[in-house]
């Protein structure tokens, strides 16, 4: 026989003024299973809790009902009181007689009291079916996987590693550094990007807690939070890094020239190459798609000149497996291809370039030695037109969103142009100037005033050729007139888009992505770094376009989340998860389909006791289950139940009144 204790709170006057508490106590005492019914002014106060603890011991209660405020308020408080009295905390039920009765029926004390009695009756009935539950602890593998070695991945990896947690950093290309390594100077302070980034890259390479796996990709992720297993494919580099000293003799002698991705294809690199001089690791790789030795079996010059014998043409892709507890995804961004802007002559005119191409040109280690040149004739441009929102905020040709950083880097480009070519002039066509950020508006002002760049509000409708100039025709909406600028060079601020591979990666990791391909955060406001899958976090532009400070902040936030997750040897988890009664499970696997977390798997069990015949049943992975109960409601044979909200508990509530 159940022995239930009911504890009704006055909540000062909050409850007592509108609910007749003595009558509640009197009525609830009549319930068959109720052993004691006690009232007190403030149940949540120390003396109130003491009354509960005393009653549990003295009355040998089997469950406790507290009639007070919402369980969302003090459920934890009272559970602790139960624990302190040596009772399983999950034998508590809260009857919400404040938010659901006294506060909302202030004009009818009788009705409010009747309702309060009913709510307590329901809670008592439910509590009788309550079971002892225990917090689930899931062991944690304390190693983080960071996917992507741009500034986001670098920052996350360093912050996690500084907390003495091992990190595996996987980078797709031969060197870490990402997009930031391609930048010249950064807004709004014009620090040299290389100067602030390369020390961090070196730190990654030398950090005792970071394992850097460059030129590789994650191809599989199994498991759940704290217990993931990742498979990483390390692409064949054909260079034995252990022997290579990075002397560079191989690439100097290589006869094959290939467009250089690092310099936006403005110049050429070799088929054996390091992407850029400050690359980390500073070891070359062979581009198998272009190496004549690998393609046709002829050449092999690099192998001949390598004194260390580090070249190995027989090298194969390698699969590396790592057990990890959490994942940070930082795959960065791609740039939109402005081809649809046919009215600008994109693709036909060499002197129309993208911003990142311009960035490479003005970069000191760039293909033109830091001075911009017209691709058509190599002349230094005097008049440069910058056009913003190419693809961004353009539903017809591109995408609807704002790429966020173009306003700032275009202002930067105007300033850099002025630095490099003193007698030049910049014209900037814009839709709006979005310069929200510390020092950003001032920076734009600097471009407008100090550099005297001409800002023209309006869209460009046409670019056509006149002699060797490009005529840029657009509207100056502020004076309501058509303007034409005779330009030497046109720079298009193309939109940021999600990496093409993101949907594949998302499927592989089991997380979601939006219609543009950006990976989705768990909550746009309150959980911006987590994904809906526990233990997987997002940093940088893979989640949405953002600038360097925001990216670094998000990366550090990821690191904090990972460190929090790894703060104990096990993770504690609410025991409100689903459980399968294998005796009743018929193995239809519909629960596997509806589970939003993939928490349900199947296992084989013997048909009967000692039987050799096997049958398939469902099994809940407690570490992954979030306790929604979707599986419970669709299980026809009621083989699954959700602890804390079992069928008997809810049915008891329904039939209690």
């Amino acid at each position, binding site marked *: 026989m159940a022995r239930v204790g009911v504890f009704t709170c006055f909540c000062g006057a909050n409850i007592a003024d509108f609910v007749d508490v003595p009558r509640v106590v009197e009525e609830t005492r009549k319930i068959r299973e109720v052993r004691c019914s006690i009232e007190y002014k403030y149940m949540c106060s120390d003396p109130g809790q003491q009354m509960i603890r005393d009653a549990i011991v003295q009355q040998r209660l089997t469950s406790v009902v507290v009639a007070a405020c919402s369980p969302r308020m003090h459920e934890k408080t009272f559970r602790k009181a139960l624990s302190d009295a040596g009772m399983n905390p999950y034998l508590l039920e809260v009857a919400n007689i404040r938010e659901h009765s006294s506060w909302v029926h202030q004009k009818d004390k009788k009705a409010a009291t009747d309702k309060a009695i009913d709510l307590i009756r329901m809670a008592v009935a439910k509590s009788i079916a309550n079971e002892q539950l225990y917090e689930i602890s899931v062991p944690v593998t304390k190693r983080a996987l960071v996917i992507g070695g741009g500034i986001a991945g670098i920052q996350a990896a360093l912050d996690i590693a500084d907390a003495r947690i091992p990190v595996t950093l996987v980078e797709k290309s031969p060197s870490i550094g990402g997009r930031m390594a391609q930048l010249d100077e950064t807004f709004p302070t014009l620090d040299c990007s290389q100067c602030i980034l390369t020390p961090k890259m070196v730190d990654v390479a030398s950090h005792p807690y970071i394992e850097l796996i460059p030129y590789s990709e994650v191809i599989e992720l199994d498991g759940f939070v704290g217990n993931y297993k990742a498979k990483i494919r390390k692409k064949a580099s054909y260079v034995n890094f252990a022997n290579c000293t990075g002397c560079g003799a191989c690439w100097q002698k290589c006869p094959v020239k290939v467009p250089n991705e690092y310099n936006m294809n403005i110049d050429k690199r070799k088929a054996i190459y390091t992407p850029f001089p400050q690359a980390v690791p500073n070891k070359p790789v062979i581009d198998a798609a272009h190496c004549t030795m690998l393609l046709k079996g002829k050449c092999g010059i690099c192998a001949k000149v390598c004194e260390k014998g580090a070249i190995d043409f027989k090298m194969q892709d390698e699969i590396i497996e790592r057990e990890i507890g959490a994942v940070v995804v930082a795959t960065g961004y791609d740039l939109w291809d402005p081809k649809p802007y046919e009215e600008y002559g994109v693709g036909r005119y060499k002197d129309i370039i993208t911003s990142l191409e311009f960035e490479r040109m003005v970069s000191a280690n760039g293909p033109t030695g830091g001075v911009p040149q017209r691709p058509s004739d190599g002349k230094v441009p005097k008049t440069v037109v910058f056009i913003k929102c190419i693809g961004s905020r353009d539903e017809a040709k591109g995408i609807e969103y704002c790429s966020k950083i173009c306003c700032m880097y275009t202002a930067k480009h105007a300033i850099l142009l002025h630095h490099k070519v003193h007698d030049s002039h910049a014209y900037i066509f814009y839709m709006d100037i979005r310069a929200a950020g510390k020092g950003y508006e001032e920076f734009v002002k600097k471009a407008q005033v100090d550099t005297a760049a001409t800002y023209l509000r309006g869209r460009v409708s046409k670019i056509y050729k006149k002699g060797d100039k490009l005529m840029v025709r657009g509207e100056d909406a502020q004076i309501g007139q058509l303007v034409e600028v005779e330009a030497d060079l046109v720079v298009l601020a193309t939109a940021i888009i999600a990496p093409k591979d993101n949907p594949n990666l998302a499927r592989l990791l089991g997380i979601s992505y939006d219609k543009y391909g950006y990976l989705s955060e768990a909550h746009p406001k309150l959980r911006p770094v987590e994904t809906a899958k526990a233990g997987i976090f997002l940093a940088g532009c893979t989640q949405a376009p953002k600038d360097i400070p925001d990216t670094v902040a998000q990366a550090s936030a990821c690191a904090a989340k990972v460190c929090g997750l790894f703060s104990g040897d096990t993770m504690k988890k609410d025991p409100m998860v689903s459980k399968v009664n294998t005796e009743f499970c*018929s193995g*239809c696997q*519909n629960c596997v389909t509806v589970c939003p977390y993939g928490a349900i798997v199947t296992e084989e069990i013997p048909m009967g006791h000692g039987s050799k015949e096997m049958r398939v049943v469902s099994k809940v992975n407690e570490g992954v289950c979030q306790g929604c109960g979707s599986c419970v409601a669709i299980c026809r044979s009621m083989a699954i139940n959700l602890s804390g909200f079992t069928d008997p508990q809810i049915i008891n509530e329904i039939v209690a009144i």
Partner: protein
Amino acid sequence: MDYTKQIQEIASKLFAEEKIDIFIGYRQNAFDDNQVPILVTVPADVPNLIFTDKSVLNLTNYLKFEHTRNKRVGIVVKGCDSRALNMLLTESQVKRENLYVIGINCTGVLNEKGEKAQNCLECVMPDAVVYDEMIGTPSGKKEYSVNVDVKELAAKGLVERGEYFQEIFENCIRCNACRHSCPLCYCTKCCIDQESAVLYNGSNTPSSAFHALMTWSLHLAGRCVDCRNCEKACPSHLPLHLLHKQNEMVIYENFQQHLAGMEKDDRGAFYKYSMKDPDDFIM
């Protein structure tokens, strides 16, 4: 529609080639006025097999019993039966590799009065959708139409409809024959039989019948293929199809014209969703 010869030939061939252990088909009953299922285990019994337009029952029901589990089974399925088989395959209740399926492209079976059965008149898929071997000419998918009885009842007033069903629930004797005859009621332990004190009081009253039949029909909603085994098994001759057809209509009209078992790996309407599902009934 008389495929007796073909089926006997196929069954003999399957036994001769040792492809099957059991063949599930139809035979004439003792009074020669109806057909009953037969589980043929030896080739000598093959001549008893028969298939005509009186081969009414859905034989896939016999796949859920212990006799056939993990045995190699040859089975005859009509259009509706094959949809039930599809459901069983999708819900992992039978293994495809254990089955040799003879699909009948059905032209409709007869009811007790010798007329074409109502579910055959309204049939959407007379052709077998799963088969190893096909008999008859496929006639293709038919247009969906709302069940005439459902339509007629829905046109009546609420009170009248309520009284009609009250009688049905009063006449139910809670024998569970409907459940037993349904191929898709294969649960290890039916929910109605569990924890009876809380869920269902087990007594033979209209309210318990109501509760059991409501639960049952909702568990078959989006899965029922309208074979009407249940109705044939019901000793009280209750029009059980009303409940299933009502649910089928709601599902068809609201959830992208969903019909159970038409495709492989379609788990039924309640195990998927669409953003376009109706929302106007929710405040």
